[in-house]
C-alpha cells in the first residue's frame, strides 16, 4: 500500500519509458552535476577533465601528428592504436575482476577462462569456422558465405551470457570454499578451459539412442592449437566503419565505448544494495549472513557478473584481432589482470583502470621499446620484453609487502588492509584519522541523494572521536560469536 502512494510521486513514470526518461534526466543533468563537482572538488574535477580530454582526443592526435615526431619530443615512446585498444580491453577485464576480487573479496586466479569463452563465442559465431553451413545475419559478409556470421553487436550480449553462465556454473559448487581453496579451484578452471579449446579439434564419437544414431568423424570443434581465424571484425553498418587492427583509431573508440559501459555498470552495482552486500561479505561474511544477506547467492552474483565483463573483453579482442587461439589464454594473463587490479587499488574502479592502462603500456609499449634499445647497445643481453613477468612477479611481491592497497586505493580497502598489517591499535587509529580529515569535505556530497553521477566513495566520519579504552578494534580478529 505504501508503494501505491509513492508511485504517484514517482517523477519518472514506469517501465521502459520511465527508465528512459530517468536516463534522459541523468544525461541532461550532466552539466549541473559537473558544475557541482567543480564546486565541491575543484582540483580533482579539473584533473579528471583534462585526463578525459587527453584520452578521448589522443587516438586522433596520435594518428595525425604525434606518432610522427613523438620519438624526438618525448623521452618515452607513446602507445600506438593497438596498445590503446588493448588498454581498453584490459580495462574492461580489470573492472570485471575488481567486482569479484575488489568488491566481494573473492580471489579468482582463472579469470582468463571467461576471457577465452568470450573470444571463442565471437570465433564460433562470426567466422568461416563452420564451413559446411552458411548463416549470415546482418553481418558484413556476402550472402551465402560459409560459416556463421552474426554481427558484433549481437555477439557481445551472447558473450556476456556465455561467460556469465559459466561463471555461475563454476561458482555454484565452489563458492562455499574458503578463500585460498577457491583461488586454486578457479585457477584449475582457468587451465582446463584453454586445454579443452586446444584439444577438441578432432572429435570422433558415435552413440545411438533407440532408432536415432548420432556420430561424427574427426569433427573439428575448436580449431585446435591453430585456433580460429579469420573472425569478422566489428562493423558499423551506416557509417561503414570496420573496427579491425588495420582501421587506425576506430577500434580505440569502440573499446572506449564498451569500457564506458563497463565503468557505468560497475559503479551502479557498487552503489546499490548488491554493492553493500558485497562489501559486508568482504568484511564479515558471517555477520552479513546473520543480517539476512544470502551470502552464497550474492557471491555467485559477483562471480557471474565479473565473468561477463571478461566475456565482453574476449569477444572484443577476438573480433578486433580477427583471430583467436588457446595460447592467448594462459595463467599469466589471469595474473596480469590481477596485478592491474592490485597495482591500481583493489576495490577502486578508477584505480584498477589506472592499473590496466599503466601495465598495458609497460607490457606492450615500454618494455618492447627498452628491449629494442638494449638490443642495439648489447645484442647478446637478454631482451627485457621477454622477461616482463620477472618484473610483474617482483611487482606482486613488493606490492603485497609495501603497498597492498595499491596506488589509487579504495579508502575502505586500505583501512581493512591496514588493520590487518599493523599490529598495534594506535597505528590503525592514526591511519583512519588521517583518511578522515582528507575525506571531511566529501561527506557533503553524500548528503545529497539526488547525486546520481557523483563519484565519491562512501565517506568516513566527519570527525574522529577516537576509540575509548574499550574500543573493539580487534573484532575482525575474533571469529567466534
Amino acid at each position, binding site marked *: 500500500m505504501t508503494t501505491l502512494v509513492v508511485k504517484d510521486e514517482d517523477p519518472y513514470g514506469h517501465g521502459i519509458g520511465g527508465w528512459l526518461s530517468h536516463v534522459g534526466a541523468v544525461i541532461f543533468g550532466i552539466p549541473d552535476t559537473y558544475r557541482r563537482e567543480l564546486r565541491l572538488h575543484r582540483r580533482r574535477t579539473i584533473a579528471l577533465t583534462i585526463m578525459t580530454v587527453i584520452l578521448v582526443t589522443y587516438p586522433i592526435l596520435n594518428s595525425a601528428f604525434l606518432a610522427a615526431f613523438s620519438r624526438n619530443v618525448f623521452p618515452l615512446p607513446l602507445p600506438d592504436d593497438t596498445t590503446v585498444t588493448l588498454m581498453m580491453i584490459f580495462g574492461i577485464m580489470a573492472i570485471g575482476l575488481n567486482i569479484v576480487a575488489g568488491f566481494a573479496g573473492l580471489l579468482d586466479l582463472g579469470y582468463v577462462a571467461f576471457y577465452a569463452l568470450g573470444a571463442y563465442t565471437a570465433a564460433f559465431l562470426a567466422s568461416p569456422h563452420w564451413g559446411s553451413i552458411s548463416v549470415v545475419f546482418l553481418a558484413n559478409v556476402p550472402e551465402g558465405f560459409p560459416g556463421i556470421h552474426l554481427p558484433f553487436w549481437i555477439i557481445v550480449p551472447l558473450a556476456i551470457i556465455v561467460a556469465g553462465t559459466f561463471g555461475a556454473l563454476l561458482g555454484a559448487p565452489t563458492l562455499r570454499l574458503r578463500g585460498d581453496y577457491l583461488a586454486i579451484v578457479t585457477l584449475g578452471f582457468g587451465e582446463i578451459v584453454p586445454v579443452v579449446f586446444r584439444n577438441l579439434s578432432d572429435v570422433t564419437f558415435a552413440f545411438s539412442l533407440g532408432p536415432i544414431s548420432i556420430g561424427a568423424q574427426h569433427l573439428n570443434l575448436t580449431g585446435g592449437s591453430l585456433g580460429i581465424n579469420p573472425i569478422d571484425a566489428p562493423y558499423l553498418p551506416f557509417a561503414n566503419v570496420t573496427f579491425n587492427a588495420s582501421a587506425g583509431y576506430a577500434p580505440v573508440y569502440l573499446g572506449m565505448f564498451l569500457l564506458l559501459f563497463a565503468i557505468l555498470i560497475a559503479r551502479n552495482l557498487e552503489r546499490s544494495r548488491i554493492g553493500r552486500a558485497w562489501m559486508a561479505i568482504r*568484511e564479515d561474511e558471517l555477520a552479513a549472513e546473520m543480517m539476512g544477506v544470502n551470502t552464497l547467492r550474492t557471491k555467485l552474483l559477483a562471480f557471474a557478473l565479473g565473468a561477463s565483463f571478461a566475456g565482453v573483453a574476449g569477444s572484443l579482442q577476438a573480433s578486433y584481432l580477427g583471430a583467436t587461439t588457446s595460447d592467448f589464454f594462459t595463467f599469466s594473463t589471469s595474473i596480469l589482470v590481477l596485478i592491474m587490479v592490485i597495482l591500481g587499488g583493489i576495490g577502486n574502479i578508477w584505480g584498477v583502470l589506472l592499473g590496466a592502462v599503466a601495465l598495458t603500456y609497460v607490457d606492450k609499449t615500454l618494455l618492447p621499446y627498452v628491449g629494442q634499445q638494449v638490443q642495439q647497445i648489447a645484442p647478446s643481453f637478454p631482451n627485457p620484453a621477454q622477461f616482463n613477468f620477472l618484473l610483474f612477479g617482483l611487482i606482486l611481491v613488493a606490492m603485497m609487502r609495501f603497498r597492498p592497497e595499491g596506488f589509487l586505493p579504495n579508502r575502505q580497502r586500505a583501512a581493512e588492509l591496514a588493520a590487518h598489517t599493523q599490529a598495534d591499535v594506535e597505528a590503525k587509529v592514526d591511519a583512519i584519522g588521517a583518511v578522515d580529515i582528507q575525506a571531511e569535505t566529501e561527506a557533503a556530497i553524500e548528503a545529497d541523494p539526488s547525486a546520481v553521477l557523483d563519484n565519491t566513495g562512501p565517506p568516513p566520519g566527519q570527525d574522529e572521536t577516537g576509540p575509548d579504552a574499550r574500543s573493539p578494534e580487534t573484532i575482525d580478529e575474533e571469529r567466534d560469536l
Partner: protein
Amino acid sequence: MSLGNPSGQTAANTVGPPASDGDVLVRSRGVTKRFGGLVAVNNVDFDIPRGSIVSLIGPNGAGKTTFFNMITGFYTPTSGEIEFDGRPIVMKRRNGLRSLPPHEVAALGIGRTFQNIRLFGTMTALDNVRLGANVHLKSRWWDAALRTPGMLREEAENRESSMDLLRLVNLEDRAHAWARSLPYGDQRRLEIARALATKPKLLLLDEPTAGMNASETRDMTTFIRRLRADLGLTVLLIEHDMRVVMGISDRVTVLDYGTVIAEGTPTDVRRNPKVIEAYLGRGAADT
C-alpha cells in the same frame, strides 16, 4: 516508518501452537546440541511469549550463546524442535536435522546483535543499517546495474527508513562516520539499529550492556523497554548484569551446563536455591 510486520501476518500458513501455549513466538522442545563429546545445550524446552522480554542467564559456558545460535540457524541442533512464529526453523531430513540458513531465519523476522560487536567496520553507520534492510529490498541486479526508477525509489525509501532508525538510536549525526570509528556505546546501539532494519519480530540481544558504565547501562535498559513499547518487539536477552535482568525481564530462564535449572519471573528465579548454587557454588544455598 514501520517496524515489524503486523503480528499474525503469517498466521495463514501457521500450523499453530496448541491453544494452551498462549501466543508463543518461539517454541523449543528438547533442544540438544553436542560438540563432539561436549553437550553444550541439553534437552531445553523454552518458550518466548509474543511481546515479552525474556532473559537467558547462566554462568559462563552454560550454553546461552549456543542456544542463540540455534535459534538463528547458525548451528543445527543435534536433536529437538525449534519453531518461530509457528514455522519450524529446524527440519527433519533423512540424514538428520537441518536448520534454515541464517539469512532465511533473518528474513522470517529474527534480528540479533553479537557479544563481540560485529559491525561492518569500514562501512558507514548508515550503510550498516541499510545493509540490515537488504532482505526486504526487492530490486534485482539488473535494476542495480541500470539504476531503474523502481530501484532508485526503493533506495531512497531505504535511506529514509534507515535514517529514521539511526534517529531512534540517537546516531543520526554520525550517519556518515565509519562504524568502527564510533565509540563503544554508539557501536552497541548501531548494532541494534542494524538488527531493527531487518524488521524483526524477535530481537536477540547478546550482552547488550557488556562493558558499559552505570549510566550507559540505564540508558540501554530504558531503550530496550521502549523497543517493546513502541515497536511491539519481543526481546530475548543474554545478560550478565543482574540489575538489568531483574529490572526489565518478564521472565528469566537459567541455564547451567546446558540444562534449564530454573524458569519463572525474576523474583521466583532470584529465590531459587538451584540458581544461587549455580552462581555461588555448591553449598551456598544452604548457608
